[in-house]
Each structure stands twice: as structure tokens, then as C-alpha cells.
């Protein structure tokens, strides 16, 4: 099973490692997240160039925010799906697809997609603030640091954001883990909260460009 690239990159870090922080599987987990943040960041930067001509065309700041948010999150979903497809294609080429059942594939993909959507939502929200150039690094750190805390302190591991996209740390896996339903709902709530916080922030903001 561990030879499938898809599982190595998207299933997460198993909990039965003898090391406190399993660096190699953790690095493999962070690899697609790094690509994801890089692509989403590139898209954000590209669109920023044309914002001076586009913003006023929306008529209202809240109208701009909703469309901007939705567009960017949809781009995040497309990027996440593309990454899944590319890695799956690698498994097909290497003849490893046989190691994956449709059910396993779906479980891993859904968890990774929801996690990517919440990351894309945080990205759009944080991008509003003057810290925007640090956003990809901050999200990468959020993922890494919360995972490491979860590894070291078992009592809080289910509440750690860095665990939430990992199939191997979820209740869907045989060793058990965070409750998938609760975490998916939590990520949906975080998405809605990002929209609401952004809208409130923009109401108080005085300089848009």
C-alpha cells in the first residue's frame, strides 16, 4: 500500500510510527500542500495586477468580496483536483493503481479536498490584510506546527488543523482518529466565517487600493 504515490502524498502520516515526528512521511504530506499554496498564491498575485480596473466595476465592496472569494476558492478546488489527478496519473503510469480501491481513493480525496478548500478560504481572507506577502508561509507553518503539536500532545491531536486532511489520522482509518463528520462541518464553518470576517473587515477599511 505504501508504494502508491497517491497514498504517500495525500493519505497523511500514519500514527503507528515509532518516531515522535515522522519527518519523511510528513515531508511527503507537505509537498502537495506546498504546490497548492504556490499555485493559489500565483493566481492571487496575477489577479491583483488588474484589481485597479476591476474593483470599481463590482459597484459595491461586498459584491466584490463575495465574487472574489468564491472565484478564488473555486480556483483552489480546481488546483486541488488537478494535483490529485496528476498524482493518480503517476500511479497509473507506474502500475500502482491496483493498490487503490475506489472507496479508499474517494475517502482520501474528499478529506484532502475539504482541507484544501479551507486553506484556500484562509488564503483569500488573510490576503486582505497588509500581511499578504507572508500568507503562503503562514499557512504552510500553520499546517506544519499544528501537526507537530498534535503528534506531541495526543490529547489535543484531534483539534489540530494540520491533522484534518489526513485519512490515516481520521476515524475512517482502522486505527481511528479525528471524527470526520465533525471536522468537515468545522471546515465548512471556518469557510463561512472567513467570508463573514472579510466582509466586516472591508466595511471598516478606508483604503481599498
Amino acid at each position: 500500500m505504501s508504494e502508491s504515490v497517491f497514498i504517500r502524498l495525500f493519505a497523511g502520516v500514519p500514527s503507528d510510527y515509532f518516531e515522535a515526528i515522522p519527518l519523511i512521511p510528513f515531508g511527503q504530506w507537505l509537498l502537495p500542500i506546498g504546490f497548492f499554496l504556490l499555485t493559489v498564491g500565483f493566481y492571487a498575485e496575477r489577479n491583483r495586477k488588474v484589481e485597479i480596473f476591476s474593483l470599481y466595476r463590482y459597484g459595491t465592496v461586498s459584491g466584490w468580496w463575495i465574487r472574489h472569494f468564491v472565484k478564488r476558492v473555486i480556483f483552489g478546488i480546481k488546483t486541488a483536483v488537478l494535483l490529485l489527478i496528476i498524482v493518480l496519473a503517476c500511479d497509473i503510469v507506474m502500475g500502482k493503481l491496483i493498490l487503490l480501491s475506489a472507496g479508499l481513493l474517494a475517502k482520501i480525496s474528499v478529506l484532502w479536498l475539504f482541507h484544501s478548500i479551507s486553506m484556500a478560504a484562509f488564503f483569500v481572507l488573510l490576503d486582505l490584510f497588509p500581511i499578504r506577502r507572508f500568507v503562503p508561509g503562514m499557512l504552510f507553518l500553520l499546517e506544519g506546527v499544528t501537526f507537530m503539536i498534535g503528534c506531541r500532545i495526543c490529547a489535543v491531536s484531534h483539534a489540530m488543523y494540520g491533522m484534518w486532511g489526513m485519512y490515516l489520522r481520521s476515524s475512517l482509518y482502522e486505527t481511528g482518529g479525528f471524527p470526520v463528520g465533525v471536522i468537515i462541518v468545522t471546515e465548512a464553518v471556518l469557510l463561512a466565517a472567513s467570508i463573514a470576517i472579510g466582509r466586516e473587515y472591508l466595511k471598516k477599511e478606508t483604503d481599498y487600493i
Partner: protein
Amino acid sequence: MAEAIRVENVTKRFGEVVALDRINISFEKGKIYGIIGRNGSGKTVLFKTMIGYLKPTGGRVVVGGKEIGKDIDFADNMGIIIENPGFLSRYTGYKNLEYLASIRKLIGREQIRESMERVGLDPDSRKKVGKYSLGMRQRLGIAQAIMENPDILILDEPMNGLDNQGVNDVRDILLGLKKEGKTVILASHNKEDIEVLCDTVYEMEHGRLV
């Protein structure tokens, strides 16, 4: 003549810096106004405040009877060029305008093509904007400002980077827009542009009208 924009006692501060200091101006419909002043005199800040991109620290901007930031966030009848025109560099000029036009959905392909032809750009060109010269970008900036037939045009240095032919083309376009009853407010370093085009000229210095 009817009023297009009224700037009432507008002050804009960035921390301790006073970028606009109690500005009062009224712009009437169907006229071309020139704003001159050195770099840093407050022209661009004034333009951004009129568009709604910056909220004044004091005073108000009224466009078509509606107060920016209170009744409306941005005026719906404006076309603008502010600073150096930024576009999606991997798209063609036409694709860029199509993207911007898709936001308001007021115009179709024909109007986009017409606006590009009006500024001397080929809408069928496959050249990416990343390969455009500064003058071509400026022409594309003007095309995006006029394509939706706005009543008010706010143009910050619209002649930047244009050759003589380009400058003459833009002058003709602006005079044509004036005849159509549009209000044009432009900032320029070029005194000739101002003399040829403008009905009224204001000068700014240290955030104040002088």
C-alpha cells in the same frame, strides 16, 4: 450646467501625512478638466478618493447626487485609468477587456472590439499583453476606460508612454467624448495636453488646490 462630481471639503490623511487638505471642486457634465501638479502633490489620491478607492478622512465626494461611501461604494458610470495600467500579462488585449467587461455585463464583443479599434489596437491580435509596449498598454488602458460608455472618465496621465500619433489619437477621442456630453477629468504633466483639451485647469500642491 448639471454637476457630475462634487468634492466637498475633502481631507485625506495617511497617519501624520496630509495628502489632501480641504479640497473643494465641482466638475460639470460635458467638460474636460485638467489637474496639474508635481509628483506627490495629491492628484492620484484625489482621483482614488473620487472613485471610492480611498475613503476621505473628512468631507465627502458626491457623484450624480450620491455620496461615495454612504449611498454607494463606487460610482457605476465611471471609466478610469490610475497609475500604470495593470493587465493579465498572459492574456491578449481583447481577453483582458473581455474579462473586465464580464464583471458588469453591460457590453458585448462588438463594443469591446470597437473600443480597441478606437484606440488603434487590433482586437484580433494574438499578442499577449506581456509583450505590449508601454504605449500599447496605455492604449489598452484607455480602451478599458471608455468601452462601457461611461459618463465620467477619470484619467491619471493617460498620455504616458504614447508616441505623437498616440497622443493625437487620444486627444481626438477625449474631444469626441466631450461632444457626447461626457465629463473628463485628467491629470497630465504635459502642458500642451492641458491647453489643447481642458476647459478648466486646477493646480495642486502639497495636497491643496492653488
